[in-house]
């Protein structure tokens, strides 16, 4: 069981007072807050260990390199990867998708297809659009139904031998939708030879993910959404696939041998990681993995489910509120909302005056907002440090704000 009231003590930011009110942070979908353990570890690295990794032949560098490389092992265990060499450090999920899009499509032919869904984050659309334009590939989008869930029948109907990539969100940052990944991988394997990529930006912070069980090929993870610092994330990929892939970014540390006119690449994962990596951030992220592991991902998941149930019931009590949220039995604790005739940015500015932090806009999922005919929504997301009380504060603040705005 997670005791969020106690847990808040680990997060220094909750001591802040915003507009005279204690902070009610409901924007973890954009970025999570950081526990003192992560912050202290990063400080400790700068104060006690700092030296560039993979280069020095002195103690400091060797210690930092070990700490940095150990984070791969932490992720291997966290995600049940086959090997720690399958963990590639990136700047974040977005860079992960760009890396995969540029590298995987190198051998594709004109007319090959990439299958996404209508509710993907721009990070899982734009890199594919760019690759598609360059190589003459075709993007297809599986429908999201009226209950804000993936239409599996439509998804299946779009699969063919031409499908080379299926890249899909695991937990939606709009509706909380949890993709039925197992059913989906079975369908894909039956009908295609496509690579299966999972967008784990929201899924990995909230739910236990076992890449072997899910039967996927690649997973993109954002560090700052799972209690880690910004500027760091990972791509997990099956080693045999990573070995076949060409790097897309070049520079130091990713090479085996360099001549004036050619070079050979270092083995995975290093061939994908040119230059000095953000090793302090990576080590900080490793601490975040430990923090979540200590809590137990089954407890994190249970907390998310309970919080979602409470929040949904409370939000449903506001009559004029339209809620974009997966109607499935299970979903993430993410609610995008709008009120007819009131702009989402007005609501979020007013909520800020009650100390409530939510996001407004299209949350980097503009095509889906367009499909629904809505310019903007405001979005509340819950995480491990959020309590039922936080959603009570939100609901009261929405009601008070609407009185002023209507």
């Amino acid at each position, binding site marked *: 069981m997670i005791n969020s009231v106690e847990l808040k003590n680990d997060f220094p930011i909750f001591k802040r007072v915003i*507009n*005279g009110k204690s902070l009610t942070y409901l924007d973890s979908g954009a970025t999570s807050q950081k526990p003192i353990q992560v912050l202290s570890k990063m400080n400790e690295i700068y104060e006690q260990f700092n030296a560039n990794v993979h280069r020095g032949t002195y103690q400091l560098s060797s210690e930092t390199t070990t700490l940095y490389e150990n984070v791969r092992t932490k992720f291997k265990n966290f995600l049940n990867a086959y090997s720690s060499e399958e963990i590639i450090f990136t700047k974040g999920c977005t860079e992960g998708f760009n890396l995969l899009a540029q590298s995987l499509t190198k051998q594709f032919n004109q007319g090959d297809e990439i299958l996404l869904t209508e509710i993907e984050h721009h990070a899982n659309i734009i890199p594919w659009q760019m690759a598609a334009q360059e190589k003459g590939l075709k993007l297809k989008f599986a429908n999201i139904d009226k209950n804000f869930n993936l239409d599996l029948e439509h998804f299946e109907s779009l699969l063919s031998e031409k499908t080379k990539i299926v890249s899909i969100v695991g937990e939606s940052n709009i509706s909380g939708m949890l993709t039925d990944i197992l059913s989906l991988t079975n369908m894909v394997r039956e009908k295609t030879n496509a690579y299966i990529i999972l967008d784990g930006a929201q899924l990995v912070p909230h739910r236990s993910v076992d890449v072997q069980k899910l039967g996927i090929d690649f997973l993109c993870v954002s560090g700052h959404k799972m209690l880690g610092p910004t500027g760091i994330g990972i791509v997990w990929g099956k080693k045999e696939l990573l070995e076949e892939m060409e790097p897309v970014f070049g520079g130091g540390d990713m090479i085996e041998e360099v001549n004036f006119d050619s070079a050979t690449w270092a083995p995975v994962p290093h061939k994908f990681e040119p230059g000095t990596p953000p090793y302090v951030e990576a080590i900080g992220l490793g601490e975040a993995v430990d923090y979540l592991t200590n809590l137990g991902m089954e407890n994190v998941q249970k907390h998310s489910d309970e919080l979602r149930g409470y929040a949904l019931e409370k939000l449903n009590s506001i009559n004029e509120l339209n809620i974009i949220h997966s109607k499935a039995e299970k979903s993430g604790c993410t609610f995008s909302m709008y009120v007819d005739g*009131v*702009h989402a*940015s*007005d609501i979020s*500015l*007013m909520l*800020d*005056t*009650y100390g409530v932090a939510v996001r*407004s*806009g299209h949350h980097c999922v503009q095509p889906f907002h367009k499909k629904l005919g809505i*310019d*903007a929504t405001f979005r509340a997301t819950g995480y491990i440090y959020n309590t039922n009380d936080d959603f009570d504060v939100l609901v009261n603040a929405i009601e008070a704000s609407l009185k*002023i*705005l209507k």
Partner: protein
Amino acid sequence: MSIEEKVLNYKKILSLFPNTQEKYQYLIEQAKENTNFPKELRIDEFKVNGCQSQVWLVPEEKNEKLYFISDSDALIAKGLVTLISSIYSDESAEEIYNSKIDLMQEFELGAILSPARRNGAFSMLKSIKNYAEKLRN
């Protein structure tokens, strides 16, 4: 009244409200009172870039003075652009171009004035200055 005097006047009014919420309520009132923007002018030609909310600005030149009317689909943003329009209206292009007052610094308006590229008010201020610069030449 000069641009500076108008800014200081609004600053004084805003300072009467003890917290951000009441300042927003004042902007909402200004927005509700601003009914002079014809709906048919809510077109791309007059749209100012912004992401959080849409803002429209229509400039007009009369007797060597500039006049602005503005609108937004969000109330608090509309209140703010209404103030900005009134500050820069009835002024010459030269006066607008030369005005160095940092309106965003002067108004303490919480999150709405965060210097984000998404903020319609910032883009609008830039549009007003650009327009003045063009006419001045």
